[in-house]
């Protein structure tokens, strides 16, 4: 049971208030129709699933209902931070989108 900082409510809250939303910053192919089966299949089914730092989506279910991103270490459950989608995108991109 973690504690997550909600970047919208600006408070640390217990994990029970949140829902997990999977890997963050997945890219939906811009033109799905022209994407080949492999590209589309990668989007649908393939996840980074790293042992280590992982950018993930959470939603503050009982609170503000906003989605936000958390950088969490899947091996230790250490949390590097949580950001709004827009802020997180900048940090993620600055890291080179590393998983």
């Amino acid at each position, binding site marked *: *049971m*973690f*504690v997550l900082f909600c970047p919208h409510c600006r408070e640390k809250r217990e994990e029970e208030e949140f829902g997990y939303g999977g890997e963050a910053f997945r890219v939906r192919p811009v033109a799905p*129709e022209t994407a080949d*089966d492999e590209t*589309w299949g990668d989007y649908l089914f393939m996840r980074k699933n790293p042992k280590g730092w992982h950018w993930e989506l959470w939603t503050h279910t009982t609170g503000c209902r*906003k*989605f936000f991103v958390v950088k969490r270490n899947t091996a*230790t459950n250490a949390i590097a931070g949580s950001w709004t*989608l827009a802020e997180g995108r900048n940090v993620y991109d600055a890291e080179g989108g590393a998983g």
Partner: protein
Amino acid sequence: MTDFRIRHPNARVDFRRPLSFSFDGQVYPGYAGDTLASALLGNGVRMLGRSFKYGRPRGIVGAGPEEPNALVQIEAGPLTIPNLKATQVELYEGLIARRTSGWPTLAFDLKSFCGPLSRFMPAGFYYKTFQNQKLWPYFETIIRQAAGYGSAPEEADPETYDHRHRHVQVVIVGGGACGLFAALDLGRSGLNVVLLDEQNEMGGWLLSSPHTSIGGESAEAWLRAILAELQSLPNVAVLTRTSAFALHDMNLLLAVEQLQDHRPLAERSESKPRQRLHRIRADRIILATGAIERPLVFGNNDLPGVLTASALTTYLNRYGVAVGKRVVLQTSNDHVYQGACDLARMGCSVVLADTRSRPNTVWEQRAHSAGVDVRPGYGIAAAHGGRTTHAARLAKLDGEQNTVLAPGPLIECDVVGSSGGLSPTVHLYCHDGGRPLWDESRLAFVAPEMGRAEAGIFCTGAVTGTFGLQAGLEQAQRVTDAVLASLQKSATRKARNLETDEPDSIPARRIFRVPDGKPEGHGKKAFVDFQNDVTAADIHLAVRENYRSIEHIKRYTALGFGTDQGKLSNVNGFAIAADAMGKSIPEVGTTTYRPAYSPVTFGTLAGAHEGDTFEPRRYTAMHAAHVKRDAVFENVGQWLRPQYFLRPGEDRDAAVRRECLAARRTVGIMDASTLGKIDIQGKDVREFLNRIYANAWTQLAPGKCRYGLMLDENGMVMDDGVTACISDRHFLMTTTTGGAARVLTWLENWHQTEWPDLDVYMTSVTDHWATAAVVGPKSREVLAKVCSDIDFAPSAFKFMDWREGTVADVPARVFRISFSGELAFEINVDASYGPHVWEALLEAGAEFGIMPYGTDAMHVLRAEKGFIIVGQDTDGSMTPFDLDMAWAVAMKKPFSFIGKRSLARSDTSAPNRKQLVGLLTEDPTVVLAEGAQIIEQSDLEPPVPMLGHVTSSYFSPELNRSIAMAVVRDGIQRRSEEGRKLGRDAVFAYADGKTHKVKVVSPVFVDPEGARQNA
């Protein structure tokens, strides 16, 4: 009856308050402050049970949570509690306790006859013997009964439990000297602190060593002063009888507080819970969990009357019980000496075999002056006795090797105590990723002082291997400073005198198994784990059989598996395994420490989540109206919905039949309030719906509704419902009852993460609207009676239109939509007025024979029309095309709606998929089982290829025959003209051992042209 009491003033029992209790039907005296164990020992009750595997007599070994043998059953009936440790049961007036082991009776145990056969019951005995799996259930029953665990209560638990969430700056686990000291300093600094301890009073080992002095004060006075000050600090909560049993991520500590079990039954509060689960989220945690003395492993060390030396000391000093009068102790270390002196001073004869050839001279001197007969260089080769202990055979040990130099004397005694050193209670430290370190100088797995400071976890006292009191207090002071510093605070304390009267300690002897001069397995049985009857020989056997990982050895021998979780046995087991393998202890390592540290009741874990607060039960505004009309309810998600309404003399089938026919022939009314309703507004709402739904929303005019299919990105149907256009920038979406929350989150997810640029907002209005569906040929006439501001003429108010108006004087939205295929209207009003409008509609419909109907009838009516229920007729693998619903998919919309691309994936677009069809049984009276398998032939000779399964199946009152829906491989082709010609429509449905011939048909059984709903 012999009295083993020594009524000295330092005891923590109150000799002025005698109590009586019963054990195994016999009544005994005891005192307030006793545990069941101390009271039994005070009465000379030695043997409390028989062992798990060999049926050997067993008695009390420890004085706390480490106790492996003395498992008892408390009270009877619904209040009975099995498998409590007698050492942890606080005595109260009238307590009734029973042994849990020894079957059929304590004195005569069938398994004791196994004793002579025990060489045929080695480690892995059960694995090796019961390979015949068919007989296992039979043997299991007998083994479980013979093994002797208590019985769970058979009646419902009348007591209550609750949870309490705490958010604190510091939680301190363990109220011994170090924990108290830390609490005091942190409390004085103004921090929000919780201090908890599993015992009935704070003090830890100080309660067992009243003669110790701290800074010139007696331990007792020191303790009293600290407790008084802690009580006066409003920012410090002191919880006794509270056992921390788990430490989880980010400093979430779980602890269970006993609120009632120590009180006589008559004095327990009805309104207060029995146990409380504290879920403590702490910025910092200090583990001052102490240590548990581990016994030495020697021959017959499991006899009743063989205890840990510290338990003997505790019983003497804390409870005023001399377990025996003629005591033989053996030790590898200094810790035993104080207790030995105390026993001798209280009049016991004490022989102390110190396995070290050169004991600590200061202690040796003190022991001599107290009258203790110290025997340096000796150990106990074996204890002698049966149901109690009569003597101990000493052996002269080699000074270096753990071997016997020469046999020693046989010393008559009535109790034996041993100490193999202290094992720090590192369990909590290890629950959350901490690893214990082997400290060779202290012969212990310890937690580091700075714990995992980066995570906010600190350790102090014996858990770190700091066994001395003065050293512990100094360490507690350091740790407190570190905690304060980490919270940007500093201690404001004066220098204090922490001097104690402990002599400097000298190293312990590295000995775990005391040798008896024989090869392992040939001497008297020497037990490592008492509860699971694991001997030193078993561990050697496991190693000989080539088990190398300590985790495997644990599982093969059952070492540490019991309710004591190996608190006494683990380290001895690791060490013996290491010796057997010729490895060092750190190379062997430890098994994994997992929650719970000690057993926790299901009641505590459930808390208030039971009875009528087990799970949210959601009610519609009209619930009372349904109760009044004898509705039988079913759970749909968390909602309670009327399933059918029973009239006198009816059974369920008759009620459903009556309700269905009312809707088909005259008029019925259903509470549809539970459907999810999402209000969506914004100038991009049409575009948003175009992306979310498979079908098109660009052209839908205000005042109109449309059915929509929602797909997931895999192209599979995930929800459906009718969405109405309120205005060009305002739509009202309905979802399935169970899908409401999921769909709203789904919409928000797409909007927030993918399309934040779309001008659209959505809000759940599920609870705002109460919805009554008025269904049947007479529905128009009913509505016209209660609503004068809507034109209900068929040409003015068409199927899939909605109108705003006033129903029974309440503003309403009326939708002409139908989940039954009949002419039908759904009336939506502010839920506060739901009951009023519901009654008004029933009143208006009375002349037509209006009948409320439930979900059973709803299911039949919709199945007669072939309408799907998402989640019943679909299972996450059905595309719209599989459902033959291509009409609800708009492939030409500009934006590639969710799921669209996946519909073109090779598998999704493959032929021969399972598709939704109707089924008609050859015998019209047969209602197929839902879930029945569809097969090509009636021949059941394996392999039988499965074509699909029945998803919905009912008896249709309208058709007076059974109908079913099913997903069947290639089903749409099978029911086509071509399929019929080829005979592919003839298949079989198999369930419950019966095979029925069925025809694959269209799932629309009633009114395929839709004349009724369009009427």
